[in-house]
């Protein structure tokens, strides 16, 4: 009734593509989060006036389509003769993209810590660093984690765009198979199932944490 030319090795090919998607996502989210925390703390400490240049630059990453950012990143990379592989370029651009969103999340998290709590910590003799480490960090994490999970999922989905630079990730892999086998609907459904399997459990975890950690005190 239903027969397909899709073989086991094609599925392995798709799984490798999914692996590439996960790798790019992991690298960019890791780097983006570190940058995002630094920028977020900077933005919070400097105040709206002094951090205006930083805000503007990060805003650029959120208001320009990622596809254009990737193309620009790749062009800049060749203009400056850096000789980066597409993988490196994609990861760098995606990291900055992630950092731009992560900064907002971090800033919101720090802002959600009551000023009085921080003043209390400081008047107990804690240094700025101790205050940040033992008071702000745990409280801010609690507020920010659900949206950070949302951001991770978003980056995972947006990482599909790196196919434009020639990386063979999940969507590009399925496109190659579509071209070869001419069964677009079936293969795209499998590809969608892959994405869904990766992101649905994490989305559920985010929803659960949001419910579990929502302020009830």
């Amino acid at each position: 009734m239903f027969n397909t030319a899709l073989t086991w090795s094609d599925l392995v090919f798709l799984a490798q593509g999914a692996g590439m998607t996960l790798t790019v996502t992991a690298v960019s989210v890791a780097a983006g989060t570190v940058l995002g925390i630094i920028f977020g703390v900077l933005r919070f400490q400097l105040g709206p006036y002094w951090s205006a240049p930083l805000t503007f630059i990060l805003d650029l990453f959120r208001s320009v389509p990622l596809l254009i950012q990737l193309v620009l990143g790749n062009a800049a990379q060749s203009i400056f003769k850096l000789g980066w592989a597409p993988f490196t370029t994609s990861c760098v651009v995606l990291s900055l993209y992630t950092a731009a969103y992560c900064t907002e999340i971090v800033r919101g998290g720090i802002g959600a810590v009551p000023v009085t709590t921080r003043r209390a910590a400081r008047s107990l003799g804690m240094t700025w660093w101790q205050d940040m480490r033992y008071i702000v960090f745990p409280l801010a994490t609690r507020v920010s984690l659900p949206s950070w999970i949302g951001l991770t999922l978003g980056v995972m989905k947006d990482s599909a765009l790196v196919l434009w630079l020639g990386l063979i990730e999940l969507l590009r892999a399925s496109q190659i198979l579509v071209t070869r086998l001419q069964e677009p609907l079936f293969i795209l459904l499998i590809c969608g199932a892959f994405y869904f399997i990766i992101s649905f459990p994490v989305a559920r975890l985010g929803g659960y944490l949001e419910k579990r950690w929502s302020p009830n005190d």
Partner: protein
Amino acid sequence: MFSYTFHWNQAFKALPQMLDGALVTLQIAILSMVIGMACAIALTLFRLSGNRVLGGFATAWVEVARNTPALFQIYMAHFGLGNFGIHLSPYTALLVGIAFNNAGYLAENFRGALKAIPETQTRSARSLGMTPMQAFRYIVMPQMLRIAFLPATNQMVWAILMTSLGVTVGMNTDLAGVTQELNARSFRTFEFFALAAVIYYVIAKIVTMAARLFAARMFRY
């Protein structure tokens, strides 16, 4: 440091073409937003209806829209529907893909907004003799749209950014498509795409500011 000569003149000469492209981009974004909004309201109604099948359909739509990449959804509209003998032009495929995505995200926003509207309001509307549909239409929906207005603005900006994905299915009239075509002709990649980035940025800012003004004017009370 680098031996690349920038040729900004070429990019500026192409500016009128790119601005025409920007109009197409804006048009797709607005259309997809209108269609997405209509679908999202329908999905919200399905979820509220208590009907198993309709509710399941709405949930499936929202989950698929939110858990797969927008690019995948556009591919689905462009390549996937071909299996059923439906061959969409890049423009339509892009529109369908983004509208589908918008509907999913907006429906989720509406669900969040509904939580903020007390159940008692619906009940009192019903006891005043309104039908369920009237209660939704005149009591719930205006408040829902108001609460969901800011998230919807964000979605609009996202829709504008998503239109750039059309270039991957062969769209050549929107901003990204025009830029790509100019780029293919002259290989001035950086100049053209930098200009496109500026235009996207300006559009996004104008939309955000217009929405803010509109909200300040409409939601004064």
